[in-house]
């Protein structure tokens, strides 16, 4: 054993100022990263907790099924149905479209087109949703009337880059060696894509689609100009404005009545619960996808 007090300690036991400083820096960086990560988790927990605390008392079967009412208790049944229709229509438009875009970019496009499309999708994803709302207002609402159809087109535009980008990512995760095996067996490129690449990436693609659905369900801005003037009853015809949860939350919160504020929180809780359920489903599916691909590597 080298004596730390001796004139020349063993190099392994040396603790020069430099080493001490490196240790301190290491610890400081590690700590701040840890705090940042904790904060991110805490923010989500706080949002969920405060919405739950303020909203849970107004949640009841009646609240979930009854129509909205200007006076008296009322519920958000018509808004839930309307949001379902809006998001459903938007999904029908955005998911097949987005998947085709993803298949083209990852399997067929040349290097240049690929990067152009990826960049375009990123920019589209960055377009503020209020701008998307105004754009659709100008295109489909101005001169006509508000409609669920216009609202779902606006939501579909929000969803498209999310679906296309996430599907593109998982399609490129399928190992090139697997795609090559298909081509080398004499399958054409589209046959390889449909019979081998897409099935391999399927759960990851569904994950991407689900996350886009969750995002669209909570979007308010695209709906403000397109489907925000609606009555207090169930409306299922997308050629007219459809009641929906996000705009309804906004309306509740604008109301002078404290009871309506409580309903705004409760409606927010319903929305957040929906988003959480979808995210968990997406998470389970993507874990399955990773297991499958893990085996393929």
């Amino acid at each position: 054993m080298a004596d730390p007090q001796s004139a020349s300690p063993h190099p392994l036991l040396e603790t020069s100022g430099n080493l001490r400083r490196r240790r301190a820096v290491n610890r400081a960086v590690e700590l701040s990263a840890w705090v940042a990560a904790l904060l991110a988790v805490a923010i989500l927990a706080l949002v969920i907790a405060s919405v739950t605390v303020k909203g849970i008392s107004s949640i009841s079967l009646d609240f979930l099924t009854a129509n909205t009412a200007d006076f008296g208790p009322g519920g958000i049944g018509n808004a839930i149905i309307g949001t379902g229709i809006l998001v459903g229509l938007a999904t029908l438009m955005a998911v097949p479209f987005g998947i085709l875009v993803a298949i083209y970019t990852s399997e067929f496009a040349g290097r240049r087109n690929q990067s152009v499309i990826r960049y375009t999708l990123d920019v589209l994803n960055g377009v503020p949703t209020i701008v998307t709302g105004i754009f659709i207002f100008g295109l489909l609402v101005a001169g006509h009337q508000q409609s669920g159809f216009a609202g779902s087109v606006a939501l579909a535009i929000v969803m498209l880059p999310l679906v296309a980008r996430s599907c593109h990512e998982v399609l490129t995760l399928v190992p090139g060696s697997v795609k090559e095996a298909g081509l080398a067996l004499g399958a054409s490129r589209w046959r390889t894509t449909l019979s081998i690449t897409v099935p391999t990436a399927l759960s990851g693609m569904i994950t991407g689609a689900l996350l886009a659905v969750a995002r669209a369900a909570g979007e308010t801005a695209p709906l403000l100009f397109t489907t925000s003037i609606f009555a207090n009853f169930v409306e299922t015809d997308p050629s007219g404005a459809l009641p929906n949860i996000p705009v309804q939350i906004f309306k509740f919160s604008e109301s002078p009545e404290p009871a309506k504020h409580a309903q705004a929180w409760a409606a927010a809780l319903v929305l957040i619960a929906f988003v959480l359920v979808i995210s968990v489903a997406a998470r389970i599916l993507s874990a399955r996808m990773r297991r499958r691909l893990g085996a393929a590597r």
Partner: protein
Amino acid sequence: MNYERRDLKVADPEETTMPRSPGEAESPTPTPESPMISETPARVEDMHATRHVRLEDLHAYYDSNHAVRGVNLSFEPGNVTAIIGPSGCGKSTMVRCINRMHEEIPGARSEGRVLLDDVDLHASNVDVVAVRRLVGMVFQKPNPFPTMSISDNVASGLRFIGTPRGEIKDRVDSALEGAGLWSEVKDRLSSPGMGLSGGQQQRLCIARALAVEPDVLLMDEPCSALDPVATLKIEELIGVLKEKVTIAIVTHNMQQAGRVADTTAFMLDGELVEVGPTDKMFTNPDDDRTEQYVTGKFG
């Protein structure tokens, strides 16, 4: 005419097909009427290696990188040809030109001729799908289809070429037998191909390639991801398969070339340095560079 043995389905009657024997290949361009249909469905056990592959002044490029520089080389039926050489010498690129997988890489192109008997596989009237039905390939890493069972993996190529449903089961069994995998998997044909060991996965990939009964089998370092025992099994299999199909094997393992190949070709910097009987290549090569490489002076 014993090689008129198989029922090679061509989905599109307009699709260009390869003539089945030198006798039929009097005109260098294949005609759509080339007889391709035989009476008896063939099986892997009835296959015989009959076809030559000849590379004539083959050049291959990745963008401006000239990876293969004017190779002339023949692959004989009933014969295993090994291609050896240091990493990056263009040996994989060269064999990937034979089934036109090279052109799948963005920016890649090739020049020169690749003759299967006497039809140029790179000719503009030859369909790439037809080429790959006659020239099978086994890759460096085992790559079974992750979503498919063992039997579906082997059946996949047959399904791509539209083999009648009723025939598939028999041909899958025959291909698994041909790849020396049947006894190990016969009780779990419907379990995932990914559940097999690495060596079994590679034999599954060989079975998948054999199921469509190719004339030529390209093997691109098929054992580089396998342990010695699995490697030995594949090498034994190559010894059996060479009677059934013309084999080209890329390897960076010189001992492996010594064990499996009848003919060995040595490549360096995209050029074919020397080709000859394997024994001669390892004991008494003509070229100094070959001698230096096989004695371990570089590479």
